């Protein structure tokens, strides 16, 4: 398992996304790379923007199995379950759409499993995806 620790998230979303998608575990998922990039960006941007009053850490654990990749995000920010927020209504006419919540909506749609837990004062979000044969 690959573990990445980021001491500070404030204004560092881009840098953190690049580090996570640059790991061998993620970058080797050729057929699912677009999806993994998208999901990592949405979740990391949310944490960097909203988790902390000022600033704080983010731990990312990545585990790649032959047919599945698991990425876990841990932060010590305020308790927040993104899965409880109202999902955007994508059937509404575009003129009437709100523009929030699309990131977590895409994450849930794109991944096979998204699980939230609050453990020892940490928000723990675990996402899993079956990976398509890369050969």
């Amino acid at each position, binding site marked *: 398992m690959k573990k990445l620790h980021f001491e500070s998230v404030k204004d560092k979303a881009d840098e953190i996304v690049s580090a996570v998608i640059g790991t061998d575990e993620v970058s080797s998922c050729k057929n699912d790379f*677009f999806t993994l990039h998208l999901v990592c*960006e949405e979740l990391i941007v949310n944490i960097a923007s909203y988790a902390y009053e000022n600033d704080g850490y983010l731990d990312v654990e990545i585990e790649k199995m032959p047919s599945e990749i698991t990425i876990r995000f841990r932060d010590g920010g305020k308790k927040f379950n993104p899965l409880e927020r109202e999902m955007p209504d994508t059937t509404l006419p*575009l003129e009437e759409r709100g*523009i929030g919540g699309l*990131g977590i909506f*895409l994450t849930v749609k794109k991944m096979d499993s998204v699980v939230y837990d609050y453990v020892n004062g940490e928000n723990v979000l675990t996402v899993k995806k079956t990976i398509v044969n890369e050969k």
Partner: protein
Amino acid sequence: MENTFEVKQDGTVLNIVLNGQLATANAPALMEELNKYKNQGVTKVSFDATNLTYIASSGIRVVIFAKQKLGGNPEIEFINCNQEITGVFEMTGIKEYINFIKK
């Protein structure tokens, strides 16, 4: 490739060339640029996505902004949009509001 965009006005049409990614790092700047054309009678916003490889929800919000907030309900066009980006439009339910063009 650098994540850049270029906006050019041609009459009532806004032509926007996108390069690399349209995501958190550059989408807010494009939205700010588009905001300058608010209520100026724009009838069509044409995005050239020939060199666009990636879009995130922040990029999707730019497209929704163009449709909702520019005024006059302009036509939205994407030129040479790749399959994965088209898939994100489909998933977020905005594909039907976009004319996809191959050039």
